[in-house]
């Protein structure tokens, strides 16, 4: 594994290192980045398997996910490979159904965070000046709002549907993407202005903009992959706090059910172990892929790895991007 970055660095260091992105990206860069690193391939394969299960899940489920098809907390048997839960519902079917919801939330929330964060980052970095300062202050405010109450309040006001959870996760976690993209855009923009000014004498904003985006895209994609891991993680967190959609079955929900349904007391390890293993494996896979992408982009970039936990942990004014 090529994770050998030291402590994540300050934005100025990020900016300095971003200049290491000297050459414009060749098409197929990403494909190249992945195929040359074994862990990226493993990660992709794992994600692929889960995506397959998510898409074709309803054909794979052996039993209903709502009806009682076996005894309560039945141990794994040939009839129920992963046993049943506290309502006599087949665990394997629940797990498969959960794949769809968890991945859905993960990808969708990551996209929301990427869109918001990316937009803010690009605008901030590109336009600069007052807009930059304003947007960065807004980012700081989001950092200062404690995440749990924000989740609870939003869930209470807007209702606990899957769609709202996706939005909540996106709103809470867009800030790190914003900062990262901003740093990147700033440095790229500087270089391109200088280059064009030298060669043409006058810079054309639109053309520069067109050049900035492709430079930013790979980083954005790498960050999004890591954000997917973060979102899946956040979903288990939110559901565990009791803020999840009551009619949606997700891995986080299965963990919560095990807790509320006294699975420990009933010695029902089959209700506890599988959902957590799924979450861990998917997050690991996403981290592997995201990491490889970032490594390929610039080994000196030294930006946030081990992203899933450092959410909400950040200094103001962005001295340390402990992502």
């Amino acid at each position, binding site marked *: 594994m090529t994770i*050998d970055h030291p402590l994540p660095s300050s934005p100025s260091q990020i900016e300095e290192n971003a200049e290491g992105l000297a050459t414009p990206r060749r098409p197929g860069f990403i494909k190249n980045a992945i195929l040359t690193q074994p862990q990226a391939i493993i990660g992709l394969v794992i994600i692929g398997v889960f995506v397959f299960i998510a898409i074709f899940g309803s054909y794979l489920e052996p039993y209903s996910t709502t009806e009682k098809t076996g005894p309560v907390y039945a141990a794994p048997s040939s009839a129920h490979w992963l046993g049943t839960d506290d309502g006599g519902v087949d665990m394997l079917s629940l797990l498969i159904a959960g794949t769809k919801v968890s991945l859905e939330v993960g990808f969708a929330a990551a996209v929301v965070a990427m869109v918001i964060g990316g937009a803010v980052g690009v605008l901030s970095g590109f336009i600069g000046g007052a807009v930059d300062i304003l947007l960065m202050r807004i980012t700081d405010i989001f950092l200062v709002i404690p*995440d749990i*109450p924000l989740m609870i309040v939003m869930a209470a*006001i807007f209702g606990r549907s899957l769609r709202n959870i996706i939005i909540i996760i996106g709103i809470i976690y867009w800030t790190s993407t914003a900062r990262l993209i901003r740093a990147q855009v700033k440095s790229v923009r500087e270089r391109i202005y200088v280059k064009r000014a030298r060669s043409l004498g006058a810079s054309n904003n639109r053309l520069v903009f067109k050049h900035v985006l492709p430079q930013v895209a790979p980083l954005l994609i790498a960050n999004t992959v890591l954000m997917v891991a973060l979102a899946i*993680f956040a979903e288990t967190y939110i559901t565990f706090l009791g803020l999840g959609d009551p009619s949606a079955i997700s891995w986080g929900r299965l963990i919560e059910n095990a807790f509320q349904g006294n699975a420990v007391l009933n010695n029902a390890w089959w209700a506890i172990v599988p959902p*957590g293993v799924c*979450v*861990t494996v998917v997050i690991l896979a996403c*981290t592997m892929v995201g990491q490889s992408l970032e490594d390929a982009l610039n080994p000196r970039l030294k930006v946030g790895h081990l992203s899933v936990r450092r959410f909400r942990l950040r200094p*103001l004014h962005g001295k340390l991007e402990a992502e």
Partner: protein
Amino acid sequence: MEGRADYIIKRSLFAILTVFVAVTINFVLFRALPGDAVSGLRCQHCTKQYKAAMRRELGLDKSKWQQYVIYLKNLAHGNLGNTDVSHLPVRGQLWDPLKNTLMMLTLGTVFSIIFGLITGVVAAWRRGTWVDRGSLWTALAFYSMPTQWLGLMIVYFVADRVGLPHGGIQSPDLGILGPPSTWAYWSDRVEHMILPALTLGLVLYGEYTLIVRSAMLETLGEDYVLTARAKGLTNFAIVRKHGLRNAMLPIVTLIALSLGFIVGGAITVEYVFDYPGIGLAIVEAIAQRDYSFLQGAFLLLTISVILFNFLADLLYFKLDPRVTT
């Protein structure tokens, strides 16, 4: 030198402004929830008149703006008020759970550092081998586990086997007929802290592994190491002498950042282990719409986050004098 003093002043001012903004946001945030401390009461004597009287008592019948002004005035005098639910001073009600969480977090951080040091050194020492890769993969795997799930797993597979409690902070038979001895009290507390702290330690140690490992690797690549090796020192001795020193500052910085992160990380652990810390207290206060308690708690947490991050910034400043704003 001048630049540095300037920087510190600027940052302090900004910190104060942030606290103010945070305080205001917290005031507004909880009042956005439907209902207040009184509306959800479902006891037989909680009649309309009773609820109206309670609202008057808690000052909830005033306009939001008036409540805000009163809150700020009290805050300026250092008065956090009384909780809406038990009418006891907020300050006292905050301190007990906070103490519990701090103790558990400290123990958890100690676990993290120990695991991180061991795995980091071993990984650096055996760089490139399966030991190295295995350590990193394991660290990453633990890092990727949902905290509440790991907690549940530990309760299920570990608690009974080692004879540790499933949760809580105190054994039910402690100090019933009379106050317990100091030893009995503290050993009981520690017994109840071990598993939650272990859970936290396991999920967080990965970062320390990475820091330690890179610090070691950097050290091993330094020029003076070549000299040392020429002198005949083994890798391990070098690592021990210079590498750990290199790792110290980043580790300390990481700790500072972690301590500012009290609520989010601790809440799931406290939930699973029924540990009466600040995270659990906050979740309950939200359910009961105890605005006074929540405002006090979040003021405290915001200040601590800002304080510790500021500290971490200063450490970073020290580490890299090239950095300016």
